[in-house]
């Protein structure tokens, strides 16, 4: 920009060639996220958890179903760092393998919720009218049921199992993402540049893909992060009840459930999976908070 006497001329209507590239006048998204210490630490912790789970076959000292009856219900020993369960299976090994199941299950539920909620939210927010009303009320109805109870009812119809449980959770969570997406879409829809695109005849799908979606991404991302925490807790609760992951496959919830039976003799068995769930949930929540702060201040300082 070379203009030196801006007082006389009205601000130019931002000719594309001379407009500053968006961003340089504010620290980038990554910088802002990284400067939020709790969120950054949470991201590192979560990365470690995910990597450890993925690398379970390489790290784990035993096979997940390996039984060592003579040393059942043992406390921490050099052989079994975190002790063993009622069948003598190594707790550390099972925690790693269970992490795969629990984290994957949470991701699957949220993926389903996103695949259902976001497109419908875009549709409702963009089209408006009767479609919006109908989808909105459908969401209201689904939100009337507490997540776990609706999931249990769906499982009552379809039968227990991880996949059924996660599809159930995905359906239960979809309205939350629907609402967030719809609200963000409505906001973008009212912008002048979208009006302009419509008036020059840009097809709707192009406007949604190029103009609406990028603006909807931030709030959706924040919601996804928080929802992963909720899905992780819900999966654990369902598996604890025996409605989600079915033993002998381990998830953190399954481990809690079987550990609770031994709580009088070996309380450590409920301790570790609980810690794992709490750490993962806390991380997702803190990352969500960090994303919200880093993405939230979209308005640049230069703007009036």
């Amino acid at each position, binding site marked *: 920009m070379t203009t030196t006497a801006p007082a006389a001329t009205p601000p130019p209507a931002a000719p594309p060639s001379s407009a500053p590239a968006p961003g340089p006048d504010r620290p980038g998204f990554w910088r802002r996220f990284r400067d939020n210490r709790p969120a950054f630490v949470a991201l590192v912790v979560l990365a470690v958890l995910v990597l450890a789970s993925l690398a379970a076959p390489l790290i784990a000292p035993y096979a997940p179903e390996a039984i060592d009856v003579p040393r059942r219900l043992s406390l921490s020993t050099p052989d079994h760092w975190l002790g063993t369960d009622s069948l003598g299976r190594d707790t550390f090994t099972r925690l790693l393998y269970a992490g795969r199941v629990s984290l994957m299950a949470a991701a699957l539920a949220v993926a389903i919720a996103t695949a259902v909620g976001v497109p419908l939210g875009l549709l409702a927010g963009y089209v408006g009218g009767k479609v919006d009303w109908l989808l909105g009320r459908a969401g209201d109805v689904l939100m009337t049921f507490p997540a776990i109870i609706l999931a249990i009812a769906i499982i*009552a119809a379809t039968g227990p199992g991880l996949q059924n449980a996660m599809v159930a959770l995905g359906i239960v969570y979809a309205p939350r993402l629907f609402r967030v997406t719809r609200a963000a879409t409505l906001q973008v829809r009212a912008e002048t540049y979208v009006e302009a695109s419509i008036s020059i005849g840009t097809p709707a799908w192009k406007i949604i893909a190029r103009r609406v979606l990028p603006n909807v991404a931030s709030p959706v991302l924040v919601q996804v992060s928080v929802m992963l925490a909720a899905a992780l*807790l819900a999966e654990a609760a369902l598996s604890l*009840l025996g409605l989600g992951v079915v033993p002998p496959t381990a998830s953190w919830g399954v481990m809690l459930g079987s550990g609770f039976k031994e709580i009088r003799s070996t309380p450590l068995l409920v301790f570790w999976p609980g810690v794992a769930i*709490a750490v993962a949930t806390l991380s997702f929540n803190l990352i969500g908070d960090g994303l919200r702060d880093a993405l939230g201040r979209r308005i640049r300082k230069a703007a009036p």
Partner: protein
Amino acid sequence: MLGLLARRLAFTVPMLVVVSFCVFSLIVLVPGDPAVALAGENPDPEQIAAVRERLGLDDPFLVQFWHWFSGVLQGDLGQSLFSSQSVAAAVFSRLPATLSLALLSLAVALVLGVAVGVLAAMRPGTWIDRVATFAASLGVAVPYFWVGMILVLLFAINLTIFPAVGYVPLTENPLQWFLHLFLPATALGLAPAAVIARQTRAGMTGVLREDYVRTATAKGLPPARVVGQHALKNAAVPVVTAFGLEASRLIGGTVVIEQLFALPGLGNLAYTSVFARDFPMVQGVLLVVAALVLLINLLVDLSYGYFNPRIRQS
């Protein structure tokens, strides 16, 4: 206020009808022939025919729904598939335990959450505030069922102050009722307490900066009255909103907590019915729970009118 009530009811009643329809429609999700799937292990043709007859599965879907729904309107939720009990009687007999647990948990959440939130807001930036904020983050993340297990370990197994399992009706022995529900209610109430504490702190720090609060302090009103009479009511709306959302989640949590503490509540009924595939029973529980949540939402909406008179008109 009456206008507000009428408007809200005009929303709640149709919702109840649609919710009932959804509850009933769940049977569509049963894979294959519902009569075969629901007739138990290795059913013989007579059992299948009995289930078909009982559920009216030969009628068109809307006729089935109408049969069921017209019963619901008269308080008849149908019959259990496997016992002679009526669903309404079973649900009704389980309601006191669940309501006791839910109300006590909500009391824990509200008292603890508001107290911690107000305390943090009155001393922003101090160690009290930081400890409260940290505790709130932790409280949201720590699984409530795990808290329940740890509480059992500490206070029922190691210290034997509270019983680990069981339920005593309030009408039978109020003290035992309270002692039996203390641990489960605490476990269930901590997470919502953390959410409410956050909302209270956020709301109160804003309100405490208002001029009228400064005036009240300046004219010599003791801090307790400034907070209690002036500030709290104006900070209440977001707190009540959080309370409503948490109440719904908390009712979901009762299912797990009732299982851990062997409480004979609705959640326990849902749990046993799912494993028995007693579908009418599951539907009954689901309907009652949804009605409960709608009732809570109605009360929350009405309370807005109390806390913020401007809402009464709009």
